[in-house]
């Protein structure tokens, strides 16, 4: 009977193709939303692991988190180098790791920091050693893969995140690659790590010097020289009391702001979530429309096929076989739609990650499967089955003799 179902579907090919496409689009939409939101959330969680608070220049706390934890935005500004020591002296602070941002190499951000930073994100060396002297750099796994940089190679950074070969370069102060990190699935895969002092050196500032931030012109950059600054400080608490006390304490300082990644990320996800919910509702509506379309298609087809169905009963098809035949048509449509939808969904995620830098930076991965996809497929199959069963049961209620007599 499966063969018969396939033959019927093939016989009305255009209708079949349109129904499969409609269902595939709804499945793809839901898969894209699921993969995007789950991978985004997962990435946000992984990248912020161990970072309880970020201290930086006053401005948008979300911008501070996005620039210092996820490295997808420009910094809010710089803070005095003293801030690092100030934080380390606070009760309940286990770690305070400085970040000096400003330059990049082929779109990969150069981060002046300490070896404690990769350790905080669970990164370990795949080759070479950790940076120690000025101008030594350790590259993340994605950086190594995409730039082809090897140990011992030298490179020069460019201003800001404009990685193009045309932008201004710090030709006189090349970095040397001394280490390569293993893949971690975190933002550190896409970073180039060096000492804070290297970043100062690159900008021609004697230690202690000044770093400039992204988006700043070379002229502005020069004007900033003079004060020893870092862009932000990542803080890991050693006691829960610090989580209560420190943010308020920091925010009372006139030139500092403290931002908590968990708070800012949940605020961001809540904002993004409204949009995602709207698109999700639309995708569910699309799936129901696809189910209705399959229902109408099968109902119409079975109306035309009443004589065939009666004939099948006459030549030996049981009631169960008739139901099975019609149900299998719905299930075949739904299976094809769900399979195509999965491929389409993952394909779109893959293409988006390949062509949109920000999405790639967020670690969007087309080859990752989410358990929720099984639910989407089950929903699609369920809709296909229900859409088929109603017309199937209607066929069974028809009088075979009367149907055949009407057709004779």
């Amino acid at each position: 009977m499966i063969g018969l179902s396939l033959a019927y579907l093939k016989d009305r090919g255009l209708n079949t193709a349109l129904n499969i496409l409609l269902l595939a689009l709804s499945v793809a939409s839901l898969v894209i939303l699921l993969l995007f939101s789950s991978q985004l959330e997962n990435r946000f969680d992984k990248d912020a692991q161990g970072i309880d608070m970020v201290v930086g220049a006053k401005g948008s706390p979300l911008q501070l988190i996005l620039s210092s934890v996820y490295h997808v935005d420009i910094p809010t500004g710089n803070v005095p180098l003293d801030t690092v020591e100030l934080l380390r002296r606070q009760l309940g602070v286990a770690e305070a790791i400085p970040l000096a941002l400003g330059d990049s190499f082929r779109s990969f951000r150069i981060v002046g920091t300490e070896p404690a930073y990769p350790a905080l994100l669970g990164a370990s060396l795949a080759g070479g050693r950790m940076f120690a002297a000025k101008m030594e750099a350790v590259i993340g796994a994605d950086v190594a893969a995409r730039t082809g940089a090897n140990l011992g190679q030298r490179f020069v950074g460019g201003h800001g995140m404009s990685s193009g070969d045309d932008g201004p370069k710090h030709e006189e102060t090349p970095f040397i690659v001394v280490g390569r990190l293993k893949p971690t699935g975190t933002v550190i895969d896409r970073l180039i790590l060096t000492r804070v002092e290297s970043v100062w050196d690159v900008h021609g500032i004697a230690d202690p010097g000044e770093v400039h931030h992204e988006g700043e012109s070379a002229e502005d950059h020069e004007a900033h020289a003079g004060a020893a600054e870092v862009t932000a400080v990542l803080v890991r608490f050693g006691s829960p009391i610090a989580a209560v006390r420190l943010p308020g304490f920091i925010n009372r300082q006139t030139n500092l702001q403290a931002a908590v990644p968990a708070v800012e990320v949940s605020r961001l996800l809540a904002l993004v979530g409204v949009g995602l919910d709207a698109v999700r509702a639309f995708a569910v509506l699309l799936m129901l429309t696809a189910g209705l379309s399959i229902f109408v298609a099968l109902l119409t087809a079975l109306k035309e096929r009443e004589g065939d169905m009666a004939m099948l009963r006459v030549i030996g098809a049981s009631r169960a076989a008739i139901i099975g035949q019609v149900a299998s048509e719905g299930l075949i449509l739904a299976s094809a739609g769900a399979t195509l939808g999965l491929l389409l969904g993952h394909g779109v995620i893959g293409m988006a990650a390949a062509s949109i830098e920000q999405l790639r930076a967020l670690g969007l991965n087309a080859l990752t499967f989410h358990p929720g996809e099984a639910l989407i497929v089950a929903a699609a199959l369920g809709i296909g089955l229900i859409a088929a069963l109603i017309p199937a049961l209607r066929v069974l209620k028809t009088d075979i003799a009367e149907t055949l007599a009407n057709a004779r």
Partner: protein
Amino acid sequence: MSSPDTLTHSKTAQGPLVEARGLSHARDGRTVMAIGDWQLQPGAHALLLGPSGSGKTTFINIVTGLLTPSHGAISVAGEAMSALPPAARDALRRRTIGLVFQTLRLIPALSVTDNLALAQQLALGHVDRAAIAGMIDRVGLAHRAAARPRQLSQGEGQRAAIARALITRPRLVVADEPTSALDDANAARMIDLMFDVADGTGATLLVATHDGRIAHRFANRLNLMAPVAA
């Protein structure tokens, strides 16, 4: 109404294949078919002749178990078809009867070969490709085996329908108006083919028609009259 014994053949040791006893059917209080007692012996070629509305189709539906008679009983292959529960009727029809309709009722989405394979699968639970090829060859459709029903001429379609009815090797082949849409030459060829294939497989043939052109081909005829009020 003709005499019920017009079709009575000499009984064989195995008894009649179809036997009606006091058979009649009424709809909305009106008798639409009355046969009374009647027997069809194995291997016979029988004709049920009558105008439209005389009850031919009603009788065929009762013989094939699609309809329960108002009065009397009918047995097929020794089993009381009219007294069986629906599932058992389906099973008896499946293993004993092959049907040919005027409108053919071939599945349009399937090729000739696949139409026969489906009938075989449903009736016998398996597909015998060699037997299918042999049957298609026997009805002269070897060159059209892969064609869909809509690609066949009326005559080819009729042959395909006969082949489907016989591929399950039924003991009884029931044909309802098989020649009504055919011209004289094709009607004659159709009957020749049905005789030939039925004889070749040992099937008993019961043809219901209002087509007087083929009446002379059947020695055994049951003439039904136009319906009368009960």
